[in-house]
């Protein structure tokens, strides 16, 4: 039997980076093949080459035994390949239907026929998508399903899924996997990338490990353990969030009472949220994306208007604008570092000032303290192991993990009393993850209060002193991380156990 | 860019200059005066008063053996550019230097004292300060008198007792046209209705906006006017087009030069007459005076008496009333009729 996909000797270099080096990969027809590897290992690049987005410098691609040369995705699509990208590839202002039929208008036109086809696919897999909704009105899970519909609509036989589960909760992941198995049974070939090794072991028929731009080996899903797999990926021990002893004090650092936010459509997005965080305590907030976590953080930062009372270290800060709140001792790691955390086209030392223009080290009497900012940026670079040629490098030139390390370093400087951390390790590789966890733990020992929001339930359980679950704008349940499983959390997050 | 500034302060339009008397300075070789011409924006070929001035110079080339050098202004240029232009012409030894357009008034006033042996003449110009310049002639025109005559012609010809005036930009200069026109019309018929519209209040694009001219004129025709006089420079093309569209019996009156001569056959059937402003006469006068060693200085008024303004008869549409018009002209020359210069 010929393989569905055979990649041989693929090499791809970007200016200064060897993203793929002599990669060989064979994927059998009708299997779910997982590809794992740490951040920057070259997985996405390899997939983009297979999908025709990027051209390899050398190497051959064979699809169903035939050697092909793709110069654009349309060539790959014509060969029956479909790809779901690591980041959503959707136009928010177009409808579900439009997003699906785009580029494949020849199949069923753009009208009624196409609509019923989309509806049919959605029904067949239980996706529950309304073809006429605008994508911007969809939640992340629905968007993820839409991405899959896009691929199915084109009748792809070989489907690449690049981290499709990153934003899903366990229940949604299960549903997705159910679908994947269905696809496999119908003869589709699936290529699946994930950092969540449980998932990989659960769904894959074969596993290939990539490290530093090349494939370093295959693993049998039946026999390999999660731990072994991780060691293969990094070439060393797998770090895990280490909690250590509790350092919770009884001094309340942040007190939030009846925090409420009603959006411009009159929907109550935050509904009387009330909680305390003590010094030395990490409060984890779990929740399916879109249940108000983003708004909670932004309301606390005064980026969004809200009602209710907020006290920080005993001082009422309700009504204070963002900068004043930050100056009162809040560090803020935003969920989207590119949009909220960095000036991508400014050098690192200027990014040291961003959000900290009240610190002496950054600004003195309204004047930028260049010397201070530069020195302190240097300090962050060394202390937090930010891999960069220097502090005059623009933030854009750094990899995501290094950007995140810089942000963490910045937000922990100046001894804040409270750290608001949204998904602090999202998309960060294992090495950097461990470093970030360590930094947070250390600050906690020094008395820092932390509000931790994360989609990574292991991280939440591993780090938090307490976990609250957020559902439809309300805190609906509280768990002790020492005796809770991700499954319990997932159930609470989806409302299955709302009474709990 | 937008809001381009056209300094044609005047409702200048197509001059009667046929291509035969176009000015070609490279071919002018005589021993007459060396004339420097500083045009307003556009320069020679604008079918407007730059061309009229050029026609006067061309006549001087033909008749006086004059030679010439041309220079032209640019949209939105600074005052210093105008001065510099004049100085370049002066440094090259030209005399007289003919500056076309009132915008040169300040520049000439600044430059002339440095070149006492050179004579300057400014079309439509004025002395902006109290110190008289004894080497500058200001060539002014009694536009209100010419406008009076075409106003009278309109009043005599209208069948609706309803006529109109379209101005390019609401400035004092154009208001002179309006004032004379209205005075002439009411002189003939005190009860006549005269609609007045300006395309722009102060934006000089009003002289380059045929679309605006056409919209304004069509509005007047729609509301019952049957003759419309324009003083709107390039926008006049729109006024003529409006007359053509309004159909038989609807007339337009041209300005500055005999616009019948440059109009298309369609338009010619609707151009009743034109108010003539003889910039060519004034320009030739200024050159001739220098060549006779009796340069013009100070204010020179080109009015009806001096044949500096008048009306055209091409097309023969006003032949039946030319007697009346000439009577009015005579009365103005005799001082029996005093034509107002402001509405």
């Amino acid at each position, binding site marked *: 039997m010929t393989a569905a996909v055979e990649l041989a000797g693929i090499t791809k270099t970007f200016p200064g980076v060897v993203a793929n080096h002599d990669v060989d990969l064979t994927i059998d027809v009708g299997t779910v093949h997982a590809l794992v590897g740490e951040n920057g290992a070259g997985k996405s690049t390899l997939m983009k080459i297979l999908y025709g*987005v*990027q051209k390899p410098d050398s190497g051959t691609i064979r699809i169903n035994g035939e050697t092909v040369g793709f110069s*654009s*995705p*349309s060539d790959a*699509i014509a060969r029956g390949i479909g790809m779901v990208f690591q*980041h959503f*590839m959707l*136009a*928010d*202002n*177009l409808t579900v239907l*439009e997003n699906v039929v*785009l*580029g*494949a208008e020849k199949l069923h*036109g*753009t009208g009624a026929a196409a609509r019923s086809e989309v509806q049919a696919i959605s029904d067949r897999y239980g996706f529950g998508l309304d073809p*006429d909704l*605008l994508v*911007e009105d969809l939640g992340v899970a629905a968007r993820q399903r839409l991405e899959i519909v896009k691929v199915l609509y084109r009748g792809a036989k070989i489907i690449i899924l690049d981290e499709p589960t990153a934003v899903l909760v366990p229940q949604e992941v299960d549903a997705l996997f159910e679908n994947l198995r269905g696809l496999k049974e119908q003869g589709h070939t699936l290529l699946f990338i994930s950092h969540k090794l449980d998932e990989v072991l659960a769904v894959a028929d074969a596993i290939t490990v990539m490290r530093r731009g090349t494939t370093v080996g295959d693993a049998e899903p039946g026999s390999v353990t999660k731990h072994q797999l991780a060691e293969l990926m990094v070439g060393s021990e797998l770090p895990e969030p280490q909690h250590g002893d509790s350092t919770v004090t009884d001094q309340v650092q942040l007190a939030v009472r009846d925090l409420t936010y009603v959006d411009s459509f009159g929907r109550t997005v935050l509904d009387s949220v009330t909680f305390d965080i003590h010094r030395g305590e990490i409060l984890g907030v779990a929740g399916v994306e879109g249940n108000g976590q983003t708004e909670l953080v932004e309301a606390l930062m005064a980026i*969004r208007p809200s009602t209710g009372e907020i006290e920080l270290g005993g001082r009422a800060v309700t009504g204070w604008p963002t900068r004043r709140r930050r100056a009162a001792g809040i560090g803020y790691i935003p969920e989207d570092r590119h949009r909220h955390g960095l000036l991508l086209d400014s050098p690192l030392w200027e990014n040291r000032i961003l959000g900290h223009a009240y610190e002496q080290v950054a600004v003195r009497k309204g004047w930028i303290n260049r010397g201070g900012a530069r020195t302190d940026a240097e300090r962050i670079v060394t202390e937090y192991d930010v891999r960069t040629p220097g502090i005059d490098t623009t933030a854009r030139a750094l990899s995501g993990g290094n950007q995140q390390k810089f942000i963490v370093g910045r937000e922990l400087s100046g001894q804040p009393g409270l750290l608001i951390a949204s998904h602090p390790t999202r998309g960060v590789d294992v090495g950097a993850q461990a470093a970030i966890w360590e930094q947070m733990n250390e600050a906690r020992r020094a008395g820092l209060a932390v509000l931790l929001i994360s989609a990574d339930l292991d991280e939440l359980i591993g780090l938090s002193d307490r976990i609250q679950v957020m559902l439809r704008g309300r805190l609906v349940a509280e768990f002790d991380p020492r005796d809770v499983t991700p499954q319990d959390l997932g159930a609470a997050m989806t409302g299955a156990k709302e009474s709990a | *860019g*937008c*809001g*381009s500034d056209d300094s044609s302060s005047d409702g200048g339009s*197509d001059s009667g200059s046929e291509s035969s008397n176009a000015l070609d300075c490279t071919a002018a070789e005589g021993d007459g005066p060396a004339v420097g011409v500083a045009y307003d924006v556009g320069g020679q*070929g*604008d*079918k407007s008063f730059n*061309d009229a001035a050029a026609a006067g110079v061309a006549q001087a080339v033909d008749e006086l053996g004059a030679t010439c050098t041309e220079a032209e202004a640019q949209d939105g240029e600074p005052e210093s550019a105008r001065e510099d232009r004049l100085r370049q012409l002066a440094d090259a030894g030209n005399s007289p230097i003919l500056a076309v357009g009132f915008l040169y008034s300040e520049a000439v006033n600044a430059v002339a004292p440095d070149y006492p042996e050179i004579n300057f003449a400014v079309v439509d110009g004025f002395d902006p300060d109290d110190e008289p310049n004894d080497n500058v002639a200001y060539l002014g025109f009694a536009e209100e008198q010419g406008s009076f005559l075409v106003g009278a012609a309109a009043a005599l010809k209208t069948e609706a007792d309803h006529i109109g005036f379209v101005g390019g930009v609401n400035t004092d200069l154009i208001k002179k046209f309006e004032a004379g026109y209205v005075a002439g019309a009411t002189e003939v018929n005190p009860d006549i209705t005269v609609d007045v*519209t300006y*395309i*722009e*209040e102060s*934006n000089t*694009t009003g002289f*380059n*906006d*045929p*679309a*605006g001219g*056409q*919209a304004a004129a*069509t*509005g*007047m025709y*729609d*509301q019952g006017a049957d003759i419309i006089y324009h003083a709107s420079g*390039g*926008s006049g*093309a*729109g006024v*003529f*087009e409006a007359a*053509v*569209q309004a159909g038989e019996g609807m007339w337009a009156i041209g300005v500055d030069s005999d616009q019948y001569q440059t*109009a*298309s056959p369609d*338009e010619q059937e609707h151009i009743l007459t034109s108010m003539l402003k003889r910039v060519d006469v004034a320009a030739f006068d200024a050159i001739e005076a220098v060549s006779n060693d009796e340069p013009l200085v100070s204010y020179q008024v080109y009015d009806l008496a001096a044949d500096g303004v008048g009306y055209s008869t091409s097309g023969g549409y006003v032949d039946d009333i030319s007697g009346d018009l000439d009577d009015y002209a005579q009365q103005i020359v005799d001082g029996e009729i005093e034509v107002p210069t402001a509405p």
Partner: protein
Amino acid sequence: MTTTAPEPTQSPDGRIARLGRGYLWLLVTVGFLAIVSTVRVFSGAGQLNSVGTLQAALIATCPILLAALGGLWSERSGVVNIGLEGGMILGTWGAAYFTYFYGPWVGLIGAALMGALGGILHAIATVTFGVDHIVSGVAINIIAAGAVSFLAEAYFRDLQGGGIKQLTGLDTPPRIEIPWLGEAASDLAGQGWFFVSDLSAVVGALTNGLSIMVYLVAGLVVLTWWVLWHTAFGLRLRSCGENPQAAETLGVNVYRYKYIGVVMSGVFAGLGGYMLVLVSSSGFVTGQTGGRGYIGLAAMIFGNWRPFGAAGAATMFGYTDAMQLRSNDAVHALLLLVAVLLFVFAILRLRQGDRLNTSLYAIIGVAFLVWFFNSDSVPREFAGMTPYVATLLVLALGTQRLRMPAADGKPYKKGQAG
């Protein structure tokens, strides 16, 4: 960019709204006409809504609307085009030159080609080289103005009716005259009856010697709407303005669609120049665009990057502009119209429970009412500002739910998706 809060433009029950939309529009149109009619009868300003005013308004609208449509094509494909003015300027020259030698139909093509030239330049700079869209647009405006002055001087000087700054007396495209209907409607319109006359004025304006080009422009609005929103091509083009990377991963050749969008933008701007030269008047004069390209850009934004929205915005501008040139009485009556409309909006707002805007509208409405009753006319000097002030007023009082294409103005490079 004023808030981080997302601003969805459509209510979730969009489908229901779509069903009733046809009727809603009919209702709004009839209601508006009734209000205009009332104001006309009350103030006695017949020009407010005469056949002539409406025709002039339509004619004044067309160049602006074409520029706006041009902007739409370009920005829907993700390229901001401030060079519309330049495209329009190039179009005026093309229209004049080709019409002079080959008649108005070839002139139409000539204007389109000249406009396209501006578009191509913009596309090369922005799409191929990824230059900032605004910079390129500004440069094109400068180049176009200079080039056309220069070209006019070089090519029109010796033509009949030509000069270095003009070319007049050109043949114009034909006009549409529907013999019986046109006259009947005009007669009725002249009666000054309530509503009936106003309705006939609309019919009369459309059937009495209106240039065929006005119909063409109307057709282009519909065509734009149909092509961009109802064809595969349009979907692809719009996707390039919303998320070009996504489009690329689905096999859309983004560069090609951006090029098409920008070049079409130039074509439309060039046609706008044609309208100015051959429909709004019958001659070319240097500088005759007078900033209409910028106004078109404003109309497109104001029209929320949609063809009918742009048409509405351009019409408002064209209407006030034409009226201001035709009749001072009508401008005065406009004060009353504005007041009445403001009260209508105030009531609508009140029903939505929006106190702030209700009182804002009411107060300004009263101010206009007082002005109307305490004056006989609007000073001529101010009448000229009517279109601009009206636009500002509508913008300031309307609630801004404008949404530009998400990737509009952003540079795009192939091979960076994912």
